[in-house]
């Protein structure tokens, strides 16, 4: 059975989760101005074009913030706490952000820490993009 916390891909987001299952980090790229956008959306915020393609990313990024969550906000997370959520700025573009979990100990986290995407398959059948030290 699908976890209520798992991805629920829709027509505009399925591409990302399908690629993650294949070990690729992807985002939309504007056909008009070349700006990346994530999460996927209907129109480019920079130039207004609705032309778009999904492209592969390097999977490199830097930590811009993090939180270690102790409160089990959902019954499915009771055994998961404490867990760390990172906010990562991707190498491709300033302000291009992704969330993800990490096993990097909290004591090692710092602003602008280089990280790389890793892929974690979950029992629900979907693969999450997580983050590890870039080395």
């Amino acid at each position, binding site marked *: 059975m699908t976890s209520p*916390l798992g991805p629920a891909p829709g027509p505009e*987001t399925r591409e990302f989760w399908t690629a993650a299952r294949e070990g690729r980090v992807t985002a939309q790229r504007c056909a008009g101005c070349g700006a990346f956008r994530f999460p996927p959306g209907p129109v480019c915020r920079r130039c207004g074009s609705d032309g778009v393609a999904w492209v592969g990313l390097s999977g490199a990024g830097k930590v*811009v913030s993090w*939180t270690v*969550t102790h*409160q089990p906000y959902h019954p*499915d997370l009771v055994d998961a706490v404490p867990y760390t959520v990172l*906010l990562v700025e991707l190498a491709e573009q300033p302000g291009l952000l*992704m969330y993800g979990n990490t096993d990097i100990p909290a004591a090692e986290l710092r*602003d602008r820490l280089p990280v790389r995407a890793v892929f974690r398959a979950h029992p629900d059948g979907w693969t999450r993009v997580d983050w590890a030290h870039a080395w």
Partner: protein
Amino acid sequence: MNLRDTTAIAGIGYTELSKDSGRSTRTLACQAIRSAIADAGLTVADIDGIATHQVNDCAPLGDVVAELGLRNLTWFAEELGGGGKAPAVVAQAALAVAAGAARCVVVFRALNGRTGLRMGGSGVDRPIRSADLEFQRPYGMIAPAQNYALGARMHMNRYGTTAEQLGAVAVTQRAHAVHNPRALMRTPIDLDDYLGSRWITEPLRLLDCCLETDGACALVVTSADRAADLRRPVVTLTGWAWGIGMNDFSNSDADLTTTPARLVARQLFERTGLGPTDIDVAELYDAFSISVLLQLEDYGFCQRGEAGPFVASGATGLGGSIPVNTHGGFLSEGYIHGLNHVCEAVAQLRGEAGERQVPAARVALSTAQPGYINGVSSALLLTGQP
């Protein structure tokens, strides 16, 4: 059209705030509304407008109207939305009065925030689902506290803000709540209590977070002229503003240390000609302690990055340069989603706040902030009589 000070808040009302009301939101709403109408010296028959906001956690507006027997309605508004909305809904009521769509509008918010729908939670049950959530929820990123924790961490990284400075927000507001008979939490706390409280989502602790609350409050908006003939000191609506930030991903400089309050502040101060130094008391939306720090900077009460030392200096306490959340805020009074902040501002401007009264308070700011840092925000500036 200059609407400055042409409308007023003529009455305020509350239910008891609790962790278990034992009553429906319909009943809570009616009690708070009746209390506000009585406070204004009006009767139910005088009410011709009604407005609220909710997130599928309150009885429908029609049920409340029927229960109250409001037979003379000419205007209503029922907004979907949460934290950012209370001042916006009050401002809509003021616009309705100014435009002649209604003469006396009751604005209310009722929720069983502890025993009914609890905020945060799975995100699946979240009544309003942002597109962003699909790329947060799979990582266990589902509650507003986590979003604000990221902002708090960023503020600490960038400006050196400390746990003790976050704690100063909680300690200061508790000291205010000691003087508020309505407050849920009235036992004084110190920094050791704060630092000893359990982690919720680092760097936020239990005492950084608002209180899940059952209760309701309400107020009556009418013209300033009519308010002058009613029984309470007149508190006018001097200005209002709305603002919406970008979503959690697309705030293009990856900056969670500023909020849409910056947009709201600019409009509010441009329209009214007032500024932070004109404000005597500020009721700042405080779902989390960090939200107070961010707004102190966004509204210009201190420089960017300096809110931590500013609060630790005592500036936001009673007797400080800008007393903040004189009722204790969501952290200590209770969480009625922002309308209790407006009601406290009115009480302060009437000089009816008892031991927590800010002396000679004439201008008050009451704000609302989104559950996620970059969402809907709004604010009111209110003026009392000299």
